[in-house]
């Protein structure tokens, strides 16, 4: 339906009708040919000769035109009442267009033309309709028509200038029409006619029987033009007599209200004005205002503007007093307003109206404003309700006419020929300055024009028009708004749609998108109402019901059993698309991108993964960053609901889903819970239906990026392969692995870049074994999001992984574990996941590892967005989200970088070992301190691969603390050594690698024995079995053997309990003096074996060579233990006495001192001067001690002698009455300087004795029984003999110093100090004698100190000797 032109009042309407079997394209071609003739100059119209009919004929040489407008439909029957009120709305001519190739088909064409005319039921109209049928020849048919077929005009295909011919024919038709005007006018001019005219607000001509007969006979004689035989519709009325034609007319009126004939008398008195005024011309009872107005209308149509203007003025003068004629008044004003425009068009210049101070159109506008106001207040008080729609229609038309004037002037940049052209022949899309309109025709024949939002005129362009013309957009809009009101409901659907369409188009062209959207909603409502109602009425049988889909079998459908089988009708979808376009436009105006979820044709799924990456990032940014909301949430949701309702009603199920999901996606932050749930369910339902119906379209994945993180679960420890370089294998065979235990895995570098890099190394997976990936998915919605499938998206090696359906709970982050299996070794890249919503398409979401740079870019971008939040640079529709983004994007050029993804290394198949059984119960071992037991593990190879490499390492709870202490480095050298010794030589677990089989065939078992040593402080330990399949079989020789191999580790944790039962403390070493030797050998003389053993133990040949080792052993445990100390001496001459043991039973809670004589030790200078070794190969051992060299020397001596001591003396224990035994460590005992002195063999041994010379024969002085004291006689000279033996390995020059205590009671001869001993070779001895007399009774102590002169350190003596003499004899 074309919008009415401004000048439609001056348009003669002609209906173009296809006749016969004409192809559409042919019809369109000829119709457009006819349509191109928009006006016919008055001079071209053949004048009618007869006087009556010549009334409206143009005067000769008249300038001006008859304007034609072409229609394809007759007006609605409901408007017939307007026939006299507005003749221009009704077709006055009818042109059939036929095409013919054979002469014999002409009768058929004539017949079908007649029936078509009859179908149009134009004979109901008040005006006679002139008819003609143009038959266009095809293919040189050469038809000879003659006069056989009145009403048909054949246009030969040979004819060169068809245009001229057609316009001539049309001019003839116009002439006919003008002639008919006279006829009608004549009947109205009669008094009776005038009465009819005034009978009601919208009068109609009475039925034919009541018309004066005088008109009738003329009708058949009108055919004066042979080529244009007029075919009048009136013969139907006139010839068929009264009875038949009256009945339908009467019955029609009866149905709607009181019939005309009875009401005539009733209505006449209600018009008092007309009753009073006596007719001066024709003697009718009523005023002639209406008559004049009709006359003026007809003159306007006939192109005689001067006459028209006169009669309009006359009519208006008469209408002014009459309250009942307001609408007639308004119509007259409208007509009057039309005239200047048409005249201006004819003259073709804008300067016709010279008034400068006033715009030329102002006068017209005033008239139209007045007309609108008059229509607005016209009251159909006593009329029946049919007039409401008509009044509303006239009112709307008037407003639109008014607006279109303003609009045309505005859009044509002023009052000029362009504007006139628009006003008179607006064309099909009048409201678009540029040709960016997209129009389509829906099933109702309604052309919908949607202004493309993106290409619409800019503000500046629109404003420029305003500046040029002086008409503001607001002005136009205000005028246009008047059309909108409740009265729209009065209108019939067609008119309403037409008006709304026009209004929307104008608003759109004005750039008032919101108002356009408002009106479009109403338009949609109207159209959808028709669709819905039409469907309800038509049932299932309507063949061409647009948009009907499957529906349950209707009751009336006899062909199917009711309710069981769905009937699928063939839906026509042409109109749907444009309905949806309107909806999308409305939604976009309100800031809802209802197409944010795309519809995709299933058939056309191509590779879509290319561009996704950028989209993802984009999307993520959008998601993350806070955004200013746009729009009115309440309205948005309302509009979305409507959109969905429309799509459902059409029905277009994929669109329903698209709309629901798009709005969910973009609006869910402002949506209420119930709305979200509702939309989700609607979408789900719609998709199901769409799939069931075999719709080719479906939605893409919509729910935003679901994946938040992805993570490969590392394999369980027993399955995790550890990569080792193959070169390690060669080394491993001869290395004990001690180092690693001692120091831990210690990195010599403080900062190791390789280590950092290796921190995020790819995780290792094993071929043909399952791995697990944990994905964290997010659901931002308030409903449980159902995913039809969730699959891993990988590249690289082939994997077997199954997609699975999953439901993400509402509003949560949900971790999902997916399993997969790599089918081949290599590198596996996990890109992300592929998700698919039910009924939708799968979509891949990738999750790249973000590099630092990328992260930075992103954060910068985010902060850019954040800084824009809250600031409104763009307001209104400019701030719609997608506009904002596009503006920002243009400034930022993002560099594309190759994305990195999570990568895993898939290694070849690995064997698998498991612990079949162990000798432990509950993996716990209980030990006494120092005890050693054996743990036996049975391993089983459960894989199909051979294990040809087994290595066992251990860990226990004592290692880590010790390593830590060592690492801290705060220990003294000595302590460090102790700790290291403890770690290396006394490990908790040991394994003899050589003895065990290192090959386990598939399915075989192997056992491993591990020794476990009880060490106090150890609470737990672990046995790690590393194994591998190294000597693989390679399929091809070309394959390069890998330089790495993979081991797997099996760990067996052991709980260790160590009881601390024996404690050693206060170790001491004292000189073995003669008296002790005597005491221990003599005081007990029992003959028990223990006693004998004791005696044997203490029986040493030379006391001076020995010293006594003693230690306290305390039993803190609950049961007695036998403690054995053993001395073992190497490289000694007397092997018999070298190996001796002493065994003591230590009862619970008691302390026993163990004494053991041991031979003195002498270590060479080189040995003792060695620094205390470190057992590890630690580099950079900085000596932290700040000891003097002497102190250091002493410390080293202590260390080495202690080591030597522990080699010599070893302790063991045995459970009394039990089987368990173990060793007893002395390592905790410290050695002191005196102990060292006692232990060390002197450099020079001093043997002192007292001798008495009798007759030159040396006699030893008496010695007491223990041999420790000399008993010299008093006051008598005895010789004190000092024998010095050089025991050192080097020559010594010795000097002896003697001391006698108390010196005052002795007399001696010679010197006591500095007695020279001379140079003594090793082993050589020297004796010197000193005569001494003891002068009193008592005890005398003689001590000797030997100093060496040729050694560097002369301060300390190299040997000491002492002697005790007791003088007892009484002095008499």
């Amino acid at each position, binding site marked *: 339906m074309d919008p009415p032109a401004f000048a439609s009042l001056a348009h003669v309407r002609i209906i173009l009708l296809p006749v016969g079997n004409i192809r559409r394209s042919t019809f369109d071609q000829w119709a457009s040919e006819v349509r191109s003739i928009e006006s016919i100059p008055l001079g071209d119209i053949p004048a009618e000769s007869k006087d009556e009919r010549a009334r409206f004929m143009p005067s000769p040489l008249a300038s001006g035109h008859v304007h034609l407008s072409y229609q394809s439909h007759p007006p609605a029957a409901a408007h017939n009442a307007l026939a006299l009120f507005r003749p221009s709305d009704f077709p006055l001519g009818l042109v059939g267009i036929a095409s013919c190739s054979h002469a014999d088909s002409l009768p058929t064409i004539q017949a079908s033309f007649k029936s078509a005319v009859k179908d149009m039921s134009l004979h109901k109209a008040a005006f006679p309709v002139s008819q003609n049928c143009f038959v266009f020849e095809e293919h040189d048919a050469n038809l000879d028509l003659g006069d056989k077929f009145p009403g048909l005009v054949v246009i030969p295909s040979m004819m060169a200038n068809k245009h001229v011919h057609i316009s001539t024919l049309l001019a003839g038709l116009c002439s006919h029409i003008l002639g008919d005007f006279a006829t009608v006018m004549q009947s109205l001019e009669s008094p009776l006619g005038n009465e009819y005219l005034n009978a009601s607000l919208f009068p109609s001509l009475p039925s034919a029987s009541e018309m004066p007969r005088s008109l009738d006979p003329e009708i058949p004689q009108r055919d004066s033009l042979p080529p244009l035989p007029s075919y009048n519709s009136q013969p139907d009325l006139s010839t068929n007599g009264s009875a038949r034609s009256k009945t339908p007319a009467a019955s029609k009126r009866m149905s709607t209200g009181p019939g005309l004939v009875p009401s005539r008398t009733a209505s006449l008195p209600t018009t008092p004005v007309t009753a009073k005024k006596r007719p001066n011309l024709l003697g009718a009872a009523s005023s002639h205002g209406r008559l004049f107005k009709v006359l003026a209308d007809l003159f306007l149509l006939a192109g005689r503007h001067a006459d028209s203007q006169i009669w309009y003025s006359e009519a208006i003068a008469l209408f002014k007093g009459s309250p009942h004629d307001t609408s007639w008044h308004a119509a007259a004003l409208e007509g009057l307003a039309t005239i200047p425009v048409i005249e201006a068009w004819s003259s073709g210049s804008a300067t016709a109206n010279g008034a400068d101070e006033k715009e030329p159109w102002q006068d017209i506008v005033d008239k139209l404003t007045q007309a609108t106001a008059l229509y607005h207040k*016209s009251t159909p008080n006593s009329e029946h309700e049919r007039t409401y729609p008509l009044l509303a229609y006239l009112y709307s038309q008037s407003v639109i006419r008014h607006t279109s004037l303003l609009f045309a002037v505005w859009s044509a940049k002023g009052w000029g020929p362009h504007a006139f052209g628009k006003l008179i022949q607006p064309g099909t899309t009048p409201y678009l300055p540029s040709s960016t309109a997209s129009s389509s025709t829906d099933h109702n024949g309604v052309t919908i024009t949607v202004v493309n939002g993106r290409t619409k005129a800019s503000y500046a362009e629109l404003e420029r028009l305003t500046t040029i013309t002086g008409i503001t957009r607001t002005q136009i*809009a205000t005028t246009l708004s008047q059309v909108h*009101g*409740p009265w729209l409901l009065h209108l019939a659907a067609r008119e309403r749609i037409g008006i709304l369409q026009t209004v929307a188009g104008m608003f759109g062209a004005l750039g008032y998108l919101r108002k356009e959207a408002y009106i479009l909603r109403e338009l949609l*409502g109207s159209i959808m109402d028709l669709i819905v109602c039409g469907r309800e009425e038509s049932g299932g049988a309507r063949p061409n019901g647009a948009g009907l889909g499957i529906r349950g079998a209707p009751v009336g459908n006899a062909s199917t059993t009711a309710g069981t089988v769905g009937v699928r009708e063939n839906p026509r979808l042409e109109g749907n698309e444009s309905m949806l376009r309107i909806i999308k436009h409305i939604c976009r105006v309100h800031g809802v991108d209802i197409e944010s979820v795309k519809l995709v044709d299933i058939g056309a799924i191509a590779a879509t993964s290319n561009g996704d990456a950028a989209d993802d990032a984009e999307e993520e940014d959008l998601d993350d960053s806070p955004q200013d909301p746009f729009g009115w949430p309440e309205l948005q949701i309302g509009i979305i609901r409507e959109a969905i309702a429309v799509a459902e009603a059409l029905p277009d199920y994929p669109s329903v889903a698209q709309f629901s999901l798009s709005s969910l996606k973009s609006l869910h932050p402002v949506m209420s819970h119930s709305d979200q749930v509702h939309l989700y369910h609607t979408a789900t339902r719609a998709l199901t239906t769409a799939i069931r119906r075999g719709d080719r379209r479906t939605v893409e994945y919509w729910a935003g990026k679901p994946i938040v993180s992805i993570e490969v679960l590392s394999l369980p420890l027993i399955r995790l392969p550890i990569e080792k370089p193959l070169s390690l294998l060669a080394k491993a065979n001869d290395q004990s692995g001690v180092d690693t235990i001692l120091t831990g895995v210690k990195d010599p570098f403080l900062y190791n870049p390789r280590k950092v890099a290796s921190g995020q190394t790819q995780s290792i997976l094993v071929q043909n074994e399952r791995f697990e990936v944990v994905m964290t998915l997010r659901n931002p919605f308030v409903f449980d999001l159902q995913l039809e499938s969730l699959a891993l998206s990988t590249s690289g090696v082939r994997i077997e992984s199954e997609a699975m359906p999953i439901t993400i709970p509402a509003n949560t982050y949900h971790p999902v574990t997916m399993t997969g299996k790599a089918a081949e070794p290599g590198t596996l890249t996990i890109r992300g996941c592929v998700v698919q919503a039910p009924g939708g398409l799968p979509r891949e979401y990738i999750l790249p590892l973000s590099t630092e740079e990328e992260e930075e870019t992103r954060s910068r971008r985010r902060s850019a967005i954040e800084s824009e939040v809250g600031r409104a640079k763009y307001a209104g529709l400019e701030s719609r989200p997608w506009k904002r983004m596009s503006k920002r994007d243009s400034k930022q050029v993002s560099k594309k970088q190759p994305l990195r993804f999570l990568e895993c290394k898939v290694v070849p198949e690995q064997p698998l070992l498991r612990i079949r059984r162990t000798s432990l119960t509950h993996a716990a071992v209980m030990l006494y301190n120092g005890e050693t037991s054996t743990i036996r593990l049975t391993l089983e190879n459960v894989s199909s691969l051979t294990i040809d490499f087994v290595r066992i390492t251990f860990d226990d709870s004592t290692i880590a603390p010790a390593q830590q202490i060592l690492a801290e480095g705060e220990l003294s050298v000595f302590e460090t050594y102790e700790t290291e010794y403890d770690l290396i030589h006394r490990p908790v677990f040991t394994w003899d690698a050589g003895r065990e089989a290192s090959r386990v065939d598939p399915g075989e078992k192997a056992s491993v024995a591990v020794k476990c040593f009880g060490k106090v402080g150890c609470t737990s330990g672990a046995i790690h079995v590393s194994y591998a399949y190294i000597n693989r079989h390679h399929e091809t020789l070309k394959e390069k053997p890998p330089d790495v191999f993979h081991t797997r580790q099996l760990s067996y944790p052991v709980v260790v309990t160590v009881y601390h039962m024996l404690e050693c403390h206060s170790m001491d070493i004292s000189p073995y003096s003669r008296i002790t030797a005597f005491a221990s050998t003599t005081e007990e003389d029992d003959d028990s074996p223990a006693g004998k053993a004791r005696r044997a133990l203490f029986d040493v040949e030379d006391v001076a060579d020995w010293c006594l080792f003693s230690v306290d052993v305390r039993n803190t445990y609950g049961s007695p233990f036998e403690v054995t100390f053993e001395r073992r001496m190497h490289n000694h001459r007397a092997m018999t006495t070298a190996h001796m043991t002493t065994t003591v039973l230590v009862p619970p809670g008691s302390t026993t001192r163990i004494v053991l004589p041991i031979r003195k030790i002498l270590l060479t200078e080189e040995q003792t001067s060695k620094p205390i070794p470190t057992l590890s190969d630690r580099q950079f051992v900085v000596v932290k001690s700040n000891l003097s060299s002497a102190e250091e020397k002493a410390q080293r001596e202590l260390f080495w002698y202690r080591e030597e001591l522990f080699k010599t003396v070893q302790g063991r224990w045995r459970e009394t009455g039990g089987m368990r035994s173990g060793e007893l460590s002395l390592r905790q005992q410290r050695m002191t300087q005196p102990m060292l002195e006692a232990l060390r063999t002197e450099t020079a041994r001093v043997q002192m004795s007292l001798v008495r010379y009798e007759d030159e024969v040396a006699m030893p002085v008496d010695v007491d029984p223990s041999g420790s004291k000399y008993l010299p006689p008093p006051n008598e000279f005895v010789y004190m003999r000092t024998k010095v033996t050089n025991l050192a390995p080097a020559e010594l020059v010795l000097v002896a110093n003697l001391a006698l205590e108390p010196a005052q009671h002795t007399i001696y001869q010679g010197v006591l100090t500095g007695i020279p001993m001379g140079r003594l070779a090793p082993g050589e001895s020297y004796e010197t004698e000193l005569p001494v007399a003891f002068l009193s009774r008592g005890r005398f102590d003689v001590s000797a100190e030997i100093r060496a002169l040729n050694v560097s350190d002369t301060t300390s003596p190299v040997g000491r000797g002492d002697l005790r003499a007791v003088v007892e004899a009484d002095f008499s």
Partner: protein
Amino acid sequence: MSHHLYLLSPSDTPLYSLTHYSSKPAQTTTTSPLASNLPSWSTSAFAGTLTALSGATSATQAHHVQGGTVRIGGGQDRHVIQMIANASLDVVEEVVRKDNMMYLKSVDKFNEWTVSAFVTPGNMKFVLLHEARNDDGIKSFFHEVWELYVKTMLNPFHTAHTPIRSPVFDARVRASAKKYL
């Protein structure tokens, strides 16, 4: 007689809305005779949309209730009023771009509503739908609301897009509406 006030952010999001029923007697607005005697022509849901949007419901309701104060009730009408307020932004935007006035009196008319607007320098738009002319009162009202709004904006945590939920603001706006409208 009712008034509807909307405070719209630069991105057209309502931050505050108020419906005020004035105690003043409704002026006898000249309703067109065309608006009466409306047919109930269809019962489909879409017809309801049309009826509401064209303003027919309020007209018929007015007919029934005889111009009483409780004219605007159901959600549908509320929606329509919001639509009208939103649609009037087209005109407001245009006028604001050309004139630098803050108070735009009777800037738009739609159905039975007259729309007055007030645009702050920060591009906040106060839109008031009213039926009767009351220019001075509306101007004063707008100025008071502006003052209140500025006080709200003094809050450093309040952006141009934060909905105003302060009960104090609400109470004061209501008081102001009572005073002037």
